[in-house]
């Protein structure tokens, strides 16, 4: 039953956002969940993208962590644009537009009373430099570090939780390296 309700075609529609709500509810109610979900999803995503790098994880609507040969794991957009090592917050390799004034924010916050206080808050939009899709939005005080939304522990996932260890396992894969990049930038 679970296999049928969550068969590959249905999951593909779920990913595309086109699965009718009634059928999504059937998948929500699955107990237990389909045990091959992750494998199915990776297969669907791999078929969906136009490039060949191996998808390790999807971390956002358009962003994937992919294996590039042996020893490289990078963030990549659906369009093919790469953002570098996944241990560095991808936002540092994106394009950014900061909306600092009420007028600028009013273009996207379409009820005036909902606009944050621009004396100390700002809105940041992060775009893919390749296709200019909007990848992330932050509403934060001035000077707040860009938020590193997810740093997965890929080796534990593949080795211990899925039983399929990755070839290039290393203890330092689960390590935030963002400040290493800013350190380099600081020296320039």
């Amino acid at each position, binding site marked *: 039953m679970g296999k049928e309700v969550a068969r590959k075609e249905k999951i593909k529609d779920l990913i595309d956002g086109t699965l009718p709500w009634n059928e999504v509810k059937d998948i929500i109610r699955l107990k237990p969940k389909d045990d091959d979900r992750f494998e199915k999803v990776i297969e669907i995503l791999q078929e969906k993208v136009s490039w060949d790098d191996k998808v390790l994880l999807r971390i956002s609507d358009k962003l994937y962590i992919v294996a590039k040969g042996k020893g490289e794991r990078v963030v990549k957009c659906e369009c093919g644009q790469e953002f570098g090592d996944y241990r560095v917050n991808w936002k540092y390799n994106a394009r950014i537009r900061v909306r600092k004034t009420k007028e600028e924010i009013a273009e996207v916050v379409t*009820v005036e009373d909902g606009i944050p206080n621009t004396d*100390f808050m700002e809105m940041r939009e992060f775009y893919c430099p390749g296709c200019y899709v909007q990848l992330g939005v932050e509403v934060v005080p001035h000077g707040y570090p860009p938020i590193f939304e997810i740093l997965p522990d890929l080796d534990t996932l593949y080795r211990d939780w899925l039983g399929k260890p990755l070839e290039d396992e290393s203890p330092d894969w689960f390590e935030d390296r963002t400040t290493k990049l800013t350190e380099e930038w600081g020296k320039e």
Partner: protein
Amino acid sequence: MGIGENGKTLIELVEERERIFKETGHAYGLKDMPLLDSDPVKLMKFQSRLIAGCVSARETGRLIAASPAALLMGELLFMVATPAGDVICSSHGLVGHIQCVPFFIKAFADLNYEENPGINEGDLFSCNDGLYGPPHASDCYLGLPIFHDGELIAWAIAMNHIAEAGAVVAGNLPAFSASTFTDGFVYPPTKSGENFQQHKWWEMYWHRRTRLGRINVLDDKMRAAGAIKVHAIVHEAIEEFGIDYFKQGIKEILERERRQLMNLIKTQAVPGKVNSLRFHCVRYKDQIGKLFPNSDRDWLFHFPLDMTITPDGVMHPDYEGLNTEADFHGNIHPSGAIAIAALGQWPMVAHSSTTNTSLSYAMDYNIPKGSMGNPSNPFAAVSMGVGVVGYQCVPFQQAFSTFFFAKGFYEECFLRGATPYGYGLEGIFEDGERWAGGNFSCIGADSTGGQPYKDGSPCNGALTNPESDHGEVELFEFLEPTQLNIGRKLVPNYCGHGKFRGGLGMGGVHLITKPGQHLAISIFTSVSSECGATGTGDCGGYPALGTVTYFYHGTNMYELLDKGVPYPSDFIEAKKMYDDGILTAESVECFPGDISNIACKDGDLYIWGCHANSGWGDPLERFYDLLEEDVKYGWLTKDVVQNVYGVVVDEDGKVNEKESEAQRKKIKETRKEKSVDTKDWWKAERKKMLDKDIHELAAEMYRDCMTYEKFSKQLKGVWQLPDDYNL
């Protein structure tokens, strides 16, 4: 000789609960579960008996209650707990409070109540003191010990959110308080009754220490009656299953639930770290004045949630970087912080037949001592910490959704930047009658955020209660006769935009009618529109918007009613009528967040807006047919559809695909023109940080949060600031 099993004292039972789990990794050390293994159906039947008892207690109890939140909205809860304080099962209702019960029972042990005043059959113990389990004074707990042959074998626990807490600000959501002495009628664990009956003196406290004594006494009787009902059901279960089965069964239920929870995490999540956060602004400056000098300032709050799921599936929420405790209403003790955070965890991970404390075995929190989530001052105000620190439940839902998304369980992503809103009232009618009220109805029916596969929905979710309910306006008008509801609607364009947009926010308009000698209205919100609801949107969608409050004083509304002019039904319509000169007012006040004691007179308008939820994904990816529907039903206006979503809708309500393609291309071009490489932006921002070119409110937040080593290191690392940097 103690009251527990084998003569153990309550102190020993509580200590054993924590120690054995640490030693074995299993609740109550249950490596094997013989009842479950030998006859799982019987165990389920046993559990169902207990759940039915809790539900029955709730349904009968609420008929005794008088506060509308309990009576109509179901804001109450009944539970069965182990002698050491683990909740085994509960009724429907305010399920977050389950997490407080271990703290509540531990308080009886720590205070050695077993010795004095003694814990006996038929005793009723009441408490609403944040230091001992309950989150704040509005959440009133009652514990009834259940004995069998002289041995403590369980607790019946009851709680509800009362309508008036007797605080310095009227109502049940006091958004101003400087210390526990202004939090209201706060009572530490108290033996308030014996022989299954509350004492008369206890009733007098409600009459004398709160503004709604008559209603609060009935709520108190409701809690006692419900707990006694649970007590009876437990004894029936013992009769049916036997005492040995009962004692073993309640432990096995908890351990089974813990294992299911851990299994769910390993199935649906990925191990790793997720950061989710939000900000909130509270303004006391120039409102509190000389009376509370230590509170006479404003705050920008930083609520980080850094959650790691370790290889063993245990979740480690880290709040390090949270603001320091202070003399404001936003503090909360850890029991309350964990309880309310659980409201964002239950919908994501608890899918069994009942709620229980298994979550506490799967979570390992860091809430730094001295922060507003773990105040070191035992007299710290905690009147609305549930809505300030407590609303970390929202980042929790975001964090779980991120973990589930990565694993491919998109259907389990459930996002929302909840924007709870409520108000309190205090007045004196023309004939001198003093009255008060607390309105919880907006909190009972929030919207939801956009999900990876569909839009959020309006008015259909309550963070506090899985059974969302807006209550009934007619009953509220009966209890709050000054508040004539002349408008309520979903507000067009009031949402976070995205490929799947957030549920639309709601607006309401009250005409203040015959308040008599005096009326003051106080507002509480978790989400000041100065900061928005969450620090990030989801996958390119925009975050939820904050709440809004308007007071139009001295209006011509009665004249407009006589003329038959259409009433304003939300804050936008009212503003337009005011700008057009149709609605006149002697003065207009607008507040983006909390405000206390705004004096109102006959004919004033009190107008609110809340629940504009978060969007998911890039708005430029939104499907044409969804936008056609948005325009058709008036959820979004054509200009917004064109400017935000890049879609042109013609006069017949159909999308012009050619023009829309061009419009979306144009918006992408604008993105290209207006954006820079993050690296270039970083260089400019770094200079500002080095120059300390930052607004004082934000600087104060950074100064405070940099007292934590972790945040200080992060801030200095990201901007490459010198080690001795400070703002």
